[in-house]
């Protein structure tokens, strides 16, 4: 159980808006981001990309580029000695030696003294291609006559999964009602405001230091060492400030990193590279597109009996995290409710389009669009209130879900009640549409790397009495580090501002999985708590050794029964002297129990789970289909909220992103080419678009998370697509089953119903 000391309560309430000092560098324009980095003697790298969706490279002539003044080196795929690599599937090369598979594929790279020269040199590289038939549609790609993208993947199927739980056949046989739908979801880009940028520095010892802001630096370090065949200790990642990530920068852009490292190793000089906004869209890693066919079986009283899903995700040319994303997309929503029988068939299919990766909630948010729409379709048929239906079926504390997730703390029913109460579910405004949606998300996933489930932290008492905390967990504005300072402050009984957090140099920070799977707050925070508690013990022990009598620690002060006071500086110096230079340090590691995952992937996958219910209120212009989203109420169970300011910020931002993907965003293609690779045409919401958002916190006390906290950063986006789809359906009388929900699509529904004016 969590210690509920007065200090904990007070800290969480009085310091609920604490922010780390870094924020001041951001409001004064002094924060240094990846794009701002400049090192003496630095070169600039640029990439020549394929202009064909599918082709064989017959010849590359680089001599003219090499001769150009200011050009220091030119690299092509045939210069590389590395083998294909990948995060899940080894299907990618930093520069493709002979076979390009999408418009944007890396073909050659140049390093020159400035970026204009590098850009010009690209034009002097002559590539002779033999074009190949290309395939852009996942259905066509699976046909026997379709062009093959990768040798080892017949039918272009990169990954497949079939799962049966319970007895779906009898569930559907015995159902009173079966509803079904087909849903289409395009690629979405996280559209962080800062494009990926890096500077690679080849070191005298043959190693590489890569300066880049990435969510999981240690994993990038592993991959760089593996692909470049360098000893792990010779690869170092140093992070500038990150201009947004949202899951899209878990691994940054690995090809860019590898190419800049190779260019730097070749020239012996630092090489800076950064993606243009257009490259971000055309050669970044948006989240997979999906076609979902789904059926649901229900009893007359609205009880869920079973669900069937047939999922095809569009991998594009290479895989990145797409298999993991497809897996979450396929099954996470099954655990929101009690659904006794599940049958899922999922395939991830290669096409000659932009490769895919991940965005914020690993596909859970787009599956929500389909699953929650279907629930409301059923509710309408059965004439049951959608709230009633969800309350009847939603998962409760202590239950184990159909895929084996063990639910400890769970405030989902309370979230549903609170969101609907706040939006005025029973006091509806005439002509407005109302929609509801619910979600679960793993907080502290332990299945990414079974050998590295947990996290560790190191915390030291400095000579000046302040505290330094070293962690591998990254903060790019979510407030993780402020929360860590708060957590450590609770353990050490002092103000959070005395605790500085260092996370940005892989040489000195503990190894970590980084910012993914909502693990930082839970797992990372827990490690901080344990480390700080260790330090506290050591401080107490050392103090009593120093003054020769037992002491207690309170409000950052240490005193003995006899009234003798010691301060942190004194102890730090004492220990320093006793050990000739060491600092008092606490190391903590939190290792959550192993996943109980079996061969069918049944089992508990995370330390704990967060829950949410969102309710939306919308209005439709009957003449045009134009949608106004008046309000989204976001009720969240993320356990105890350590920092209200940043927790609210996560909700406002995540819901705005959910709104964007639901109503505005999405890739458009023309013969495999991205047709909207700009921020003008890939429309993320402006201040005038974002609806009024009301965050509500249902603060359960989680037994696992630090001081009862659970993750929040990803789940904020998950229920939005479903809530909006249902609100629109309520107003329009039918569901838009293709994201984004545009005015034109709504208008088509109105017209088909004869309801357009």
């Amino acid at each position: 159980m969590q210690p509920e000391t007065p200090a904990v309560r007070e800290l969480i309430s009085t310091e609920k808006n604490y922010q780390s000092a870094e924020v001041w560098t951001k409001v004064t324009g002094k924060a240094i981001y990846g794009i701002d980095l400049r090192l003496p003697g630095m070169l600039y790298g640029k990439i020549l990309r394929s202009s064909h969706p599918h082709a064989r490279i017959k010849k590359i002539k680089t001599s003219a580029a090499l001769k150009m003044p200011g050009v220091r080196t030119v690299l092509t795929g045939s210069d590389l000695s590395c083998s294909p690599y990948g995060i899940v599937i080894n299907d990618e090369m930093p520069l493709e030696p002979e076979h390009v598979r999408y418009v944007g594929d890396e073909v050659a790279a140049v390093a020159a003294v400035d970026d204009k020269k590098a850009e010009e040199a690209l034009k002097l590289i002559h590539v002779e291609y033999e074009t190949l038939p290309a395939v852009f549609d996942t259905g066509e790609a699976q046909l026997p006559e379709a062009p093959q993208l990768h040798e080892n993947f017949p039918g272009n199927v990169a990954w497949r999964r079939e799962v049966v739980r319970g007895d779906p056949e009898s569930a559907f046989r015995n159902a009173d009602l079966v509803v079904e739908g087909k849903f289409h979801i395009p690629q979405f880009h996280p559209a962080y405001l800062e494009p990926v940028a890096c500077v690679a520095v080849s070191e005298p010892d043959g190693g590489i230091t890569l300066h880049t802001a990435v969510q999981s630096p240690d994993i990038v370090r592993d991959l760089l060492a593996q692909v470049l065949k360098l000893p792990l200790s010779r690869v170092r990642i140093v992070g500038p400030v990150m201009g947004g990530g949202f899951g899209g920068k878990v691994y940054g852009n690995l090809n860019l990193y590898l190419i800049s490292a190779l260019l730097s190793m070749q020239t012996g000089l630092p090489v800076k590279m950064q993606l243009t906004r257009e490259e971000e869209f055309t050669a970044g890693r948006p989240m997979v597109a999906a076609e979902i066919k789904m059926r649901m079986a229900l009893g007359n009283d609205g009880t869920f009996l079973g669900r069937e899903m047939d999922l095809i995700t569009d991998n594009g040319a290479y895989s990145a995290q797409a298999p993991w994303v497809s897996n979450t997309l396929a099954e996470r929503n099954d655990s929101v409710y009690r659904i006794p029988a599940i049958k899922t068939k999922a395939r991830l299919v290669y096409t000659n389009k932009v490769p895919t990766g991940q965005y914020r909630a690993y596909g859970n948010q787009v599956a929500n669009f389909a699953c929650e729409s279907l629930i409301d379709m059923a509710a309408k048929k059965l004439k049951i209130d959608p709230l009633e239906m969800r309350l009847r079926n939603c998962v409760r504390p202590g239950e184990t879900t159909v895929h084996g997730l063990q639910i400890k703390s769970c405030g989902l029913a309370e979230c549903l009640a609170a969101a609907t109460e706040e939006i005025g579910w029973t006091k509806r405004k005439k002509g407005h549409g109302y929609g509801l949606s619910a979600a679960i998300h793993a907080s502290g996933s332990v299945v990414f790397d079974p050998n590295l489930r947990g996290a560790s932290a190191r915390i030291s008492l400095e000579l000046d009495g302040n505290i330094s905390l070293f962690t591998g967990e990254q903060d790019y504005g979510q407030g993780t580090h402020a929360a860590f300072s708060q957590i450590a402050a609770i353990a050490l009984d002092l103000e959070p501002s005395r605790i500085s957090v260092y996370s940005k140099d892989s040489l000195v920070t503990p190894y970590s999985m980084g910012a993914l799977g909502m693990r930082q707050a839970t797992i990372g925070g827990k490690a901080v708590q344990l480390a700080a508690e260790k330090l506290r013990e050591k401080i107490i022990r050392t103090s009593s050794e120093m003054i020769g009598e037992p002491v207690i620690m309170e409000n950052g002060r240490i005193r003995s029964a006899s009234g003798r006071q010691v301060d942190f500086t004194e102890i730090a110096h004492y220990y320093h002297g006793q050990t000739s230079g060491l600092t008092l340090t606490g190391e903590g590691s939190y290792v959550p129990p192993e996943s109980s995952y079996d061969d069918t992937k049944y089992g508990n996958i995370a330390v704990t789970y967060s829950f949410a219910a969102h309710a939306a209120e919308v209005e439709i212009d009957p003449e045009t289909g134009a949608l106004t989203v008046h309000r989204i109420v976001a009720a969240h169970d993320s356990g105890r909220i350590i920092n209200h300011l940043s927790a609210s910020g996560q909700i406002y931002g995540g819901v705005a992103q959910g709104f964007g993907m639901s109503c505005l965003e999405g890739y458009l293609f023309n013969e495999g080419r991205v047709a909207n690779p700009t921020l003008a045409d890939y429309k993320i919401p402006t201040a005038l678009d974002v609806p009024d958002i009301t965050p509500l916190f249902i603060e359960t006390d989680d037994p696992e998370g630090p001081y009862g906290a659970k993750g929040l950063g990803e789940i904020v986006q998950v229920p939005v697509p479903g809530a909006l789809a249902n609100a629109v359906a309520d107003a329009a009388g039918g569901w838009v089953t293709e994201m984004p929900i545009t005015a034109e699509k709504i208008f088509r529904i109105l017209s088909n119903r004869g309801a357009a004016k």
Partner: protein
Amino acid sequence: MSYFTAASLDEALNVLREAKGKALIIAGATDLFLKGMPSQAVDIASLPELGMIVEEQDYLSVGAAVTHAAAASSPLIMVKAAALAEACAAVGSPQVRNLGTIGGNLVNAAPAADAAVALAALGAKAVLCDIDGRRRVEELGNLYAGYNQSRIDSSREIVLNLIFKTCQFNEGSAFARFASRRALSLPMVNVAARVGLENGVFAEVRLVAAPVKPAPTRLFKTEEALLGKEPNEETRQMVEELASAEVKVRGSLLRCSADYRRHLIGVLAGRVLMAAVRRVQDKEES
């Protein structure tokens, strides 16, 4: 390249003349900078004579270098040519509106340029001056050579200002656009109207829609059908039907289908017309 900031119109014309076709006029640069800068630029953005908004008798003259921001907040334009104020307020973003000019909007010749559509509805004419100092006045419709192509050769002539009759007591104008995002968004369609009422019926109507053709397009049939009609719900519905039947439009992957675009033009035509009428009625009431 060379960059010349002109201090007077004569100076600008001189530089153009001497450059023999190599120099190009530049105003806010919001279009030109992305398309590629010329080898010589003659910046006319701060020429006082091109930055004025003046009323002379029944006419309003808007300088070609007036920015969208200045036009949108000009009391003169708001009162006497509301459609133009509304159109300029809808352009891009505050930053783009602070740079981009009305003249640039016209010469850039995008088919659904917001200011151009409003100006066409207001019946504006462009006053041009060439390097030999010859001035001429042109109908807006005559300035388009094709999609995104102006007949104006900015290496040898300058748009000085746009002139149109102000909206009189019995007249009103309005502009509307439809876009997927509320800022930083090019429109799927934009429509503007200028109406004159006499004895409670339409005596004069100019209704313009885009993108239909390279230039903002007048909907003559709809205009004609309106004359003599009372502005009421029935007329609005008629306009909706006539306007969308009158236009032939193309669909686009990035914006919307042709059918939907045609439908939107109808709806917006009805709306701007009624909004323009309301402006007349408001004047009559106050």
